[in-house]
């Protein structure tokens, strides 16, 4: 197993390096110059000022040299300096990480729990009214754009009935502590987490349902039934467990994208996370910050891919670590 992990890590580093180099050039291919953006915002765009900005941020150096400096920095875990925000990239990302993880992990838990639960019910009662109802419910949230669900949620729960706050991470200026603070953050979290969670729930529901129906037809299920096991035990212990493999694969891929995957939800609900940081960086052509977020996201994807491979074995002992 150790050699399997080691091999995967080495492969991961190569993939990461390729991602960095590719993104480095891709970002610079996009039209728009960060120095011109900043000079424009300053209400002055004379040549001296733009030249000064380019020199200040090292943008006047040849591209290969800029790439070398960047990769050298990454090797020492230095993600560079944000041109626009005048702060180290790692600091900016770390500031936003807790809020993003709170949102995306909650949404992930909601989507996975509800998805597997609904999928199981849909498979158990396949072809009945319950199955159709679950499918429609799941697909409605999958088909509607996230920003629309978010805005409708705000309209209903914030404006009309005034149960939940419409934006932010906590009540600004309330200076709450202890349990009151936890409750406050939770109230702010409900809408964004549900919006994001219900969207991803649909895929888990459909995947679990399809996978369970497939497993249900296999011989060992018939054997279990012949042995006289109860339906609940068959569903839970034999069908669900065997049907979970594709769901785990999906969850692994999904977990890897958790950090950068909530741009729209974070924007509509003013949630102070990394998705928004990335979006703003993109608009401002803040190259280092953008690359920093990409690198962080890529590392997360690689880590979660590795974890997924390890979890496979727990779910299905037949899979071996082929080194």
């Amino acid at each position, binding site marked *: 197993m150790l050699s399997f992990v080691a091999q995967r890590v080495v492969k991961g580093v190569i993939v990461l390096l390729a991602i960095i180099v590719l993104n480095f050039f891709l970002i610079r291919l996009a039209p728009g110059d960060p120095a011109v953006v900043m000079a424009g915002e*300053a209400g002055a765009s004379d040549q001296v000022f*733009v030249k000064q900005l380019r020199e200040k941020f090292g943008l006047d150096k040849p591209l290969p040299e800029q790439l070398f400096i960047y990769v050298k920095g990454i090797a020492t875990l230095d993600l560079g300096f944000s041109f626009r925000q005048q702060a180290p990239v790692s600091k900016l990302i770390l500031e936003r990480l807790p809020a993003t993880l709170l949102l995306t992990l909650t949404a992930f838990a909601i989507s996975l729990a509800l998805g597997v639960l609904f999928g199981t019910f849909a498979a158990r009662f396949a072809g009945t009214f319950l199955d159709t109802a679950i499918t429609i419910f799941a697909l409605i949230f999958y088909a509607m754009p996230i920003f629309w669900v978010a805005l409708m949620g705000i309209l209903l729960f914030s404006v009309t009935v005034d149960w939940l706050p419409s934006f932010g991470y906590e009540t600004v200026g309330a200076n709450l502590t202890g349990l009151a603070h936890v409750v406050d953050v939770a109230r702010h979290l409900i809408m964004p987490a549900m919006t994001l969670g219900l969207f991803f729930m649909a895929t888990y529901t459909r995947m679990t349902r399809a996978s369970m129906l497939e497993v249900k037809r296999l011989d060992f299920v018939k054997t279990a039934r012949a042995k006289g096991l109860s339906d609940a035990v068959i569903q839970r212990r034999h069908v669900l467990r065997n049907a979970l493999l594709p769901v785990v694969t999906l969850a692994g891929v999904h977990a890897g994208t958790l950090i950068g995957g909530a741009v729209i939800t974070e924007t509509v609900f003013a949630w102070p996370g990394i998705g928004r940081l990335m979006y703003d960086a993109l608009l401002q052509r803040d190259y280092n910050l953008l690359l920093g977020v990409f690198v962080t996201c890529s590392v997360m994807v690689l880590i979660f891919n590795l974890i997924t491979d390890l979890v496979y074995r727990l779910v299905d002992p037949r899979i071996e670590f082929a080194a």
Partner: protein
Amino acid sequence: MSKRVLLGLLLACGLTASALAQEPKTGGVINAVIQPEPPGLMLAMIQNGPTQMVSGNIFEGLLRYSPKLEPLPELAESWSVSEDAKTYTFKLRKGVTWHDGKPFTAADVLFSVEMLKQTHARARNNLAQVDKVEAPDDYTVVFTLKQPFGPFLGIFEVGSMPMVPKHLYDGTDWKTNPYNNAPVGTGPFMFKEWQKGSFIRLVKNPNYYEKGKPYIDEIYWQIIPDAAARSVAYETGKVDVLPGGSVENFDVPRLSKLKDTCVTGAGWEFFSPLAWLWLNNRQGPLADKRVRQAIMYAIDRDFAKDVIWNGLGKVATGPSASTIKYYTDDVPKYAYDPAKAKALLKEAGYKGEKIRLLPLAYGETWQRWGEAVKQNLMDVGMNIETISTDVAGGNQKIGDWDYDIAFTYLYQYGDPALGVGRNYVSSAIAKGQVFNNVEGYSNPEIDKLFADGAVATPDSKRKEIYAKAQKILVEDVPVAWMLELQFPTITRCKVKNLITTGIGVNDGFKDAWLDK
């Protein structure tokens, strides 16, 4: 006689009553929206709009400006100009301290001037005519100019020339100075906290030099990136102030009708944002003056004002907004006249060549405006192709002169020498940069008029020069002027005296109070 006495008594009573009604109350918190989140708050180093809106409370300039753009005292309590209009002497206010308790003196002014020349492109241009700056004593600063410079008294507003604490910046690496993240100024509010992505918190400066001010205890600048969510935040009572431009225009009428809501277009006189279409004068059909004039006739600017901008703003008559100095409406007029536009296009021999239109990626309002203009131009037979980009991509195209028609809006800073000439003189043609003369218009007569206008004395002479320049430009149509924009500020009516100067919410909340 008795009538006069009665009138006098009535007036006196009225004044007393209104004075009583307007007696400021102290205390309370203002929640305002800031959009987008500023990249930093060190105004001497970052000069974008949101930075000034927040930092205008922390830092101060030597002067402020009334809605009519007359200079008002701020850190300078008085000033005088020599007869040859080359020496400006400022007497600084005594007893002013920085937020860390150190006194503000002339040494800080001298240091700020030197620092801004390196970090603040607009200040550097504004100070280009300054020969030397001296401090004969701690509370006197003397600027000596190389030659008279008409708009000189107009360059001392907080965003154009913020004062920086010498004792915290002198001899340090400005870029990485820790006070960039916890700015120290002389202003009515002090920086307290910034939770990135959530809010910026400012608290009252208890040692502010104007006794009793500020009246408000705290300001929370809330960061809400989505325009619809900002409207909801106001609707649900979470914020009290929506500064100009915080919500989409189509939401303004709805929000204005909410209970206890006040709306004002005041506070933009100094900036006077003017929207126009860059027309690439260099190539293709637009190189012909008649085609450019046809564009002016083809566009229904009243429709844009009434429908797209919800009746806010004013149709522009030329390169100067009507709120800045030396504006004249004695210029050729271009009413909406599609027939005339068609005739001019025919005369110019336009044969349906493709013309690329670049809208401004600043949200819904601008997108709709782009669509309306496209429709207007197609109605008179022009072949328009819309190019979509984001802001940075659009800037690159404009700076590289890779466009035919492009939307923009720019501030005018109160004086044609500060914010108008830069878009029309040929010395401001420089590839790779935006917001200068990107249309490529070159007219030696205009170059001379703007050069003369900046240094001419007395005022009447400047007026004459700029009137002539405006006439020539409007005849030549180097760009197509659209609207003098108005960004309405929406507040709860309990927020009083929020806007008292021509710089508006960008000038700090020192006069504001809450009628609880």
